[in-house]
Structures are given as structure tokens and as C-alpha cells.
């Protein structure tokens, strides 16, 4: 804000300051973030090095070796598989559920509005804390969900501590936290749709399923795409829920990209492998975010136009 003092002086420097003004205004914000580009490049360099914190003397460039090793590394394929599986399952289920709930709440009424506000609460809870809440509820000795599972015959259901159900459990927590996100975006989308096509269809007695698949869904598609890509970008990077719930375990059941990179860095102190994993994840998210931003911009222009 120091620059504003000079800008307030009238007349003489006006033309220059007017030209420089936008740069002066946005520079501080940019500078704060630019510092982050340095560790980004460092990470890329690390990914091309043999670098273990336990053997600093052996640190040297091994060029693509970290990446080449991935091809024959079952742990890497496991990471890739679990990450894609996690992102695929959570986003699909959240989309179906979120769309369903949005359709249920579409009509504006006091009750519907109240419910849609209530449903926002899980989204506002820190995912790491949400994971702890579910950890308490799935505790084998007193968890209410373990008790309910035993009532329907699932005795000694281990939830996140069993390799066969760990994925299911973290997916459940993810659904609990993030379905409201998709729900509110789609609800806002549904409520902003023009009413004429629906009135015309109702007048003509068009079947409801036809209206849904031929009018509602196509008009809602940009919202669905934006919400889906938004979630996909977050979900493939999920760390908080999985780390707080199981720390990637049991065994390597849930070692998704970020969890695996974290454990590589802090436990096996293999910085090179950790960095290479992050670069690959970055490449995936970069591709996704490019598709996403195009879509999102189109939607944003439309929202601005209607405002």
C-alpha cells in the first residue's frame, strides 16, 4: 500500500501511474506466490536425483532413473491404481448422490432451503477432523457403526483397519464430506435453469423421464462438468482424510499419490522417489485443470452475464 502515496499526487505523473497502476496493485500478491515457484523447480530437480536423506553423500543426478524404476515397481502401480480407484469411485458416487439430492431439493420451500443449508455442514468441517469423527464412530470396541454392523450380522467388522474394507471406509468419509459440494453447485444450477422449456413440456404432457434426460440433464451439463472436474482434481490428490484415518494403511492398501510421497519423504527418506511421484501427480492434475479451467471459464462468463 506504500505506493498509493505517490499515486495520489495529481497531474504530473498521472499518465505513467495510470499505466503502472494495475501492475503496482497486483505485484504484492504475485510476489507472495512467486516464492512458491522456487520449491516447485527444486522438486523437479530432486525428481531427477538419487537423493536419500539417510545417505546425503550418495546424492547425485541419476536423470530419469527414478521415473524408469516406476515401470518395474509394484508399489508405484499400486499407488496409481489406488489413486485412480479412489478418485473414480468417490467422484462417481458423489455425482450420482449429489444430483439426486439436488433434484429432491429443487423446489424452493422453507424446508428444502433449511435442509440444503444443513447439508452444507459436513463440507465445512476440516476433512482431517471429519476422518477423526468417523474413526470414533468405527472404533471396534465402542463405535456406533461397528455396533450397527454387528446388529445386521457383520460381527467384528473392521472398517478402516482391515485391508478389504479400508478403501470402502475412506470413500464413505469422502462421500460424507464432499457430496454436499456437488449438491450445492448442481442445486444452484438447477434453480437457475430457464422455466419455459419445462412449462412447455408440462403443457404438452411430455413424460417426466423424457424431460429429465432430454431437457434437464443437457441444460445442467456445464454445471455437472464443472463440479465433476473440480472434485476430480481434489480427489486424485486426497491426503487429509486418508492420512488422518489410516496413514495409508493397513499395509499399502491406501498409499495414494500424496500419502505415498509423504511417507517416502519422512519415513523412508527417499526424496528422489517422493519428488518423482509428485511430479507425475502434478502432470495429471495439470492436464485435468486445463480441461477444467476452459469449462469453468465458459460457465463463469455465463454467470456474469446473467448477473
Amino acid at each position: 500500500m506504500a505506493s498509493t502515496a505517490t499515486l495520489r499526487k495529481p497531474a504530473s505523473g498521472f499518465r505513467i501511474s495510470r499505466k503502472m497502476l494495475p501492475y503496482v496493485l497486483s505485484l504484492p500478491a504475485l510476489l507472495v506466490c512467486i516464492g512458491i515457484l522456487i520449491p516447485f523447480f527444486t522438486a523437479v530437480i530432486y525428481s531427477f536425483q538419487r537423493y536419500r536423506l539417510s545417505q546425503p553423500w550418495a546424492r547425485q543426478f541419476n536423470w530419469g532413473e527414478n521415473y524408469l524404476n516406476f515401470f518395474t515397481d509394484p508399489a508405484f502401480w499400486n499407488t496409481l491404481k489406488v489413486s485412480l480407484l479412489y478418485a473414480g469411485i468417490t467422484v462417481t458416487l458423489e455425482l450420482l448422490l449429489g444430483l439426486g439430492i439436488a433434484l429432491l431439493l429443487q423446489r424452493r420451500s422453507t424446508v428444502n432451503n433449511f435442509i440444503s443449508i444443513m447439508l452444507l455442514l459436513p463440507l465445512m468441517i476440516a476433512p482431517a477432523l471429519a476422518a477423526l469423527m468417523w474413526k470414533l464412530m468405527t472404533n471396534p470396541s465402542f463405535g456406533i457403526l461397528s455396533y450397527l454392523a454387528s446388529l445386521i450380522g457383520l460381527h467384528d467388522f473392521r472398517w478402516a483397519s482391515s485391508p478389504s474394507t479400508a478403501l470402502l471406509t475412506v470413500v464413505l468419509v469422502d462421500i460424507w464430506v464432499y457430496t454436499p459440494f456437488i449438491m450445492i453447485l448442481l442445486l444452484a444450477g438447477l434453480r437457475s435453469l430457464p422455466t419455459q422449456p419445462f412449462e412447455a413440456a408440462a403443457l404438452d404432457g411430455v413424460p417426466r423421464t423424457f424431460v429429465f434426460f432430454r431437457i434437464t440433464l443437457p441444460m445442467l451439463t456445464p454445471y455437472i462438468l464443472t463440479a465433476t472436474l473440480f472434485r476430480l482434481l481434489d480427489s486424485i490428490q486426497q491426503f487429509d482424510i486418508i492420512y488422518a484415518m489410516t496413514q495409508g494403511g493397513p499395509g499399502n492398501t491406501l498409499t495414494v499419490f500424496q500419502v505415498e510421497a509423504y511417507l517416502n519423504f519422512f519415513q523412508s527418506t527417499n526424496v528422489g522417489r517422493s519428488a518423482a511421484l509428485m511430479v507425475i501427480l502434478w502432470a495429471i492434475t495439470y492436464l485435468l485443470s486445463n480441461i477444467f479451467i476452459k469449462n469453468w471459464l465458459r460457465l463463469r462468463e455465463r454467470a456474469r452475464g446473467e448477473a
Partner: protein
Amino acid sequence: METTSTLEKTLRLIALTLVVIFFMFPIFWILLMSFQTNETILAIPPSVIFTPTLSNYAALITGKLTTAAGTLDIAFMRNLMNSIFLSVTSVAISLVLGVPAAYAFARHKFKGSEDIAFTLLSFRFAPPLLVLLPLTQYFQWLGLSDTYFGLIWVYQLICLPLILWIVRGYFEDISADVEYAYRIAGHSWFATFRKIALPLAGPGIAAAGLLAFIFAWNNFVFALVLASADKQPVTVGALAFVTSSGIQYGQIASAIVLSVTPTLALALYAQRYLVEGLSLGAVKG
């Protein structure tokens, strides 16, 4: 839409009830647990009938937990203070840096403005650990690893893009004509910004600030990697608490309740703006 049969109404009602139960039950249950002693928590079958106790909250607030095995120190209040301090300071700095930048992006289509705006936005989508892991080493070299300053700086990556994109949208919605008129009347650029643009975008700025606060508060991975034990916010502190005193379930539940109350309260207060904020202005609420 009007010709809904009784059957359909019933099905809708059942579906909505299930939805509300699924999303509300965990919050309700943890709230109940926070008023229970370990004895009633461990009772089988679980029951909602118990004599509520404030002992869990008392233990957290005094920081002393007396058990049969002795007293245990709990640093939870410290975590809570850290969360408040980190979130408030980060958002304040983000507003000071981000609002003028948002104004510049909205009012002046200068060379490279879209590129800069997108670079800032792309921070929202990059994997955090990619920069956090090398950053731990830079922080050691720079002497930032044990400071609030370092954390607040990194928290800008959460708050700044959010504030920039939301507030920019609000500035774009204000007609520039009012500002031109005021400028022509002989007022300086800064006076125009302060007296016209800022008040008009006020609600948007407030909403963006509240959202940024919620995101900063809820952040886990930044502090997990970079914060030393005495600087940890509640998200990391609660997890450490679970590991260190794994069997004090009542206290864990009340720690969770205390940790989520601020964000839930703010979310209810600012719910009108959440849709727009969460979609970075792509969807109007």
C-alpha cells in the same frame, strides 16, 4: 411437476429423511460423545440416555487431565489459539494483498493480466506436497521452520487465489460508470477506490474473507509438514492428541467439537455466499 402422487411424495420424504440422517448423524453423535464419560461411551449397547458431563471440556480448557494413572497435559487450547491466530492473520494479509489485485484485474485489462490471474488460480489445483516437501528444507535454511511467519506465508496459497477470484467477480459486477463520474469530479484514483469501489464490493469482500478463513482453518497438510509442535493448529493437534492419548474418547470428541464450531458457525452465517465462493464465482447461488 405439480401432479405428484401420494406414493411419490412418500418416497421423496423417505429419501430426504435418509439423506438428512446420513449427513447429520455423525455431527449429532460426536456432540453427544463430547458430553459423555468414557464409561458411558464404552457401554454396550450404545445409548443416547446418559447424564451429560462437562468434564471433557473442563479437562481441555484447563489443559490438565486427571486419570487413575496420573495427570496428563493437553496442549489443545494452544492448538486452538494457533488456529485462530494463523487463520485470522493469513486472511487479513490476503485481503490487504488480494483486494487491490482483484480490483486491478477487474478494472484494467492490462498486458498479461489473464496469465497472472490464471497462475494464481493454478496454485489452487497443484498438489500441495509438491512444493511443501522442498519447502521444509528452504524453511530450515531461511530459519522459517519454527515460525508463524513461514506458516502464514504458505497459507497465502490457500487464501489469496480464493479472495482474488471471488472479489474480482464482485468488482466486475459493479458498473465502472459510477467510478468514472467520481473521478471526473476531480477525486483521486485512491479516493475512488476507497469511497466507491470498496463499499460497493463490501459484501463480496466479507464473504471471500469468511470463506478464506474457513479454508485456512480447515487446512491440514500445510501445517502437518511445516509446523513445529507448539505452532500446530487444531487439525494437526487433534490428530496428535488422538495418537498420544488414544483412549480418552470423550476428550477427543469434545476437542473435535471445539475445533469445528467456528467454521460451522461462520458457514451458517455466510451460507448465502457459499455457492459462489466454492465455485470461485462460476455458479451464482
